[in-house]
């Protein structure tokens, strides 16, 4: 049986579910409860990580610095985690804030094919002596071989592990097995898996990942997270315990932390509804869910159509502006195809 490192992004991914409006007191109370349960890593921040508070994905209620500071005060026995995506997070403006506020463990993320965007950020954090994990997001969008190639790049920058994120909740169990197995065999990295619940496979996929050699798992209290929510942490830990894996977590206290989250953080318990199932099928980032629902209602279009159109455009995390364009086109009954003709004209005109 294996030792599994649990990382809990309730106070980071959960922010997606409340438009990034987690309050200081909510962060304080959940961090204290997670600390009491000895959850090894508690990640805090805007849903899209450091430096991501924006009109594009939503403005945070609290600054990165404030969120980290509040959590740090409570996390006396466990580690404080910070997550950053280059393109949103910069070293000077954002990673330095997390370093100053005492984050112990860092994750630097990129879309699953774009690991080289993380080179300087991973190197920078390694140079200051912090453990760094690379995160490959939306990992249903590339081949297994490509995923291994990208994880190797992160290893070469100094990452000590790679976390595979099923950011759209689109992977089925065999998809997870294939990816984790290839990464375990093809790299020297500790491999982690981060699941979403769009098709209710969060825990099952996580266990499949462990069977293939993953040793880091993510989950959030009550699945608090974007769209249909994340792998439900307290269920995951209970199942791991039942299977005889070691997490070091006090299950009773974790259940209490999850109850607290339900009472004090979660507005609506995440669930797989018609829209989130379509979102998973379309392979669109779960963080789009609230934006799509709001904009679809405002433009008078079907959110499911919006998701399928977004899926056709292969949008990745961070392209939320496209929702407006797609919804406007659906409302006006126009196809966004004009472009091809125009390109031909430009090429001819210039040549």
């Amino acid at each position, binding site marked *: 049986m294996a030792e599994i490192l649990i990382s809990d992004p309730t106070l980071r991914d959960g922010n997606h579910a409340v438009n990034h409006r987690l309050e200081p007191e909510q962060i304080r109370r959940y961090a204290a409860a997670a600390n009491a349960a000895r959850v090894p890593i508690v990640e805090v921040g805007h849903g899209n990580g450091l430096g991501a508070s924006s009109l*594009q994905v939503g403005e945070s209620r609290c600054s990165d610095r404030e969120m980290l500071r509040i959590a740090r005060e409570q996390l006396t026995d466990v580690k404080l985690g910070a997550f950053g995506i280059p*393109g949103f997070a910069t070293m000077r403006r954002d990673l330095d804030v997390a370093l100053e506020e005492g984050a112990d463990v860092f994750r630097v993320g990129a879309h699953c*094919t774009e690991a080289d965007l993380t080179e300087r950020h991973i190197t920078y954090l390694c140079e200051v002596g912090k453990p760094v994990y690379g995160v490959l997001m939306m990992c249903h969008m*590339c081949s297994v071989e490509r995923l291994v190639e990208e994880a190797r790049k992160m290893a070469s920058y100094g990452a000590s592990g790679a976390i595979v994120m099923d950011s759209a909740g689109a992977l089925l169990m065999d998809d997870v097995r294939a990816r984790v197995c290839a990464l375990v065999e093809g790299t020297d990295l500790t491999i982690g898996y981060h699941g979403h619940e769009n098709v209710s496979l969060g825990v099952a996929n996580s266990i499949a990942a462990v069977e293939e050699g993953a040793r880091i798992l993510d989950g959030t209290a009550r699945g608090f997270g974007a769209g249909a929510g994340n792998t439900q942490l307290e269920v995951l830990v209970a199942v791991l315990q039942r299977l005889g894996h070691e997490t070091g977590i006090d299950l009773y206290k974790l259940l209490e932390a999850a109850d607290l989250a339900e009472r004090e953080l979660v507005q609506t318990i995440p669930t797989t509804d018609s829209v989130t199932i379509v979102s998973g099928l379309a392979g669109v980032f779960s963080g789009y869910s609230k934006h799509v629902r709001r904009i679809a209602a405002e433009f008078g279009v079907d959110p499911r159509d919006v998701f399928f159109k977004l899926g056709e*455009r292969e949008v990745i995390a*961070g*392209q939320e*502006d496209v929702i407006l*364009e797609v919804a406007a086109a659906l409302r006006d009954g126009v196809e966004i195809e004009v472009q091809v003709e125009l390109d031909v004209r*430009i090429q001819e005109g210039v040549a």
Partner: protein
Amino acid sequence: MDQASVAVAGAPARADVGDVRREGRPRPRLVRSGAAGGRLRVAIIGTGNIGTDLLLKVQRSELLECALFVGRNLGSTGMRKAIELGVPVSDLSIDAIADAPEELDLVFDATSALDARRHWEVLSALGIPVIDLTPAKLGKLCIPALNLADCAHEPNLCMITCGGQAAVPLASCVIRTHAHVDYVEIVSTSASRSVGPATRINIDEYLATTEAAVRRFCAVPRAKTILIVNPSSPPITMQNTVFAKTDDVDLPALCEAVEEMVARVQRYVPGYRLVMPPLYENGRIAMTVQISGAGDYLPSYAGNLDIITCAAVAAAEERARALQGESAPEAVRSHG
């Protein structure tokens, strides 16, 4: 073309850098090359996506002549393209330019922010003006649609970033039509294939320089830039969204200003077009432009190359026109 003498890799040094500096060469330099037919003789340093796309645009200019295309690897795709076109090349990078400074009137730097800083130390000492396409932010910020006329005589012009070139003109429309704008945000999305290694390594400088341009041209207290690199196949066309927060939104005035601005940018970037006119949603103004490239080096999806290379060419042509105006007698003599 008779620039064979400039061309070869490893050509002997023509002038000692120290001597040139002592001569106190005038800056900006004058057009006096008969060989270039009165055109501004330019060198391009950097043979990646941006450098190569720029080369193809310079080749079409009636005011510019690419006298030297330099990088570090004669086998690179961009270098092979230049050789195929008969453009003088060198793999000695900045040294090739330092070896023949009197052959050049202007250098385009299309390397990385770090290299551009190092190059500028050499080129400023030689008195050669630079148009910088990296986000190093060494000189005056230039967006042709906004301040071209003020840029003709700058020793170093910073062309900001592709996202800055695409979005800041639109952001400036929000500022011109609204009294109180607290915050402007730019989201640029480019196709993975068109985002080369230097841009990736420079991602933090990219964001910082774009934000500096928003503050410079829009005078807003807060600005933010987000850069997204999308790998989908077929590749997505470069896209930029401008968001702004303001009270008392005046969409009709904004739409009119934006329409006029789009037409102004189209004069030097033909593939610049509004795909989502200004709208107001959830407390924010939003509008989106796409840039289709001319398909010079990469296919048309790579509008992120065109938006900055076209801007750089526009800035160089402005300089050429200004110099021709000022130095007409000498230019005429050189023709004779």
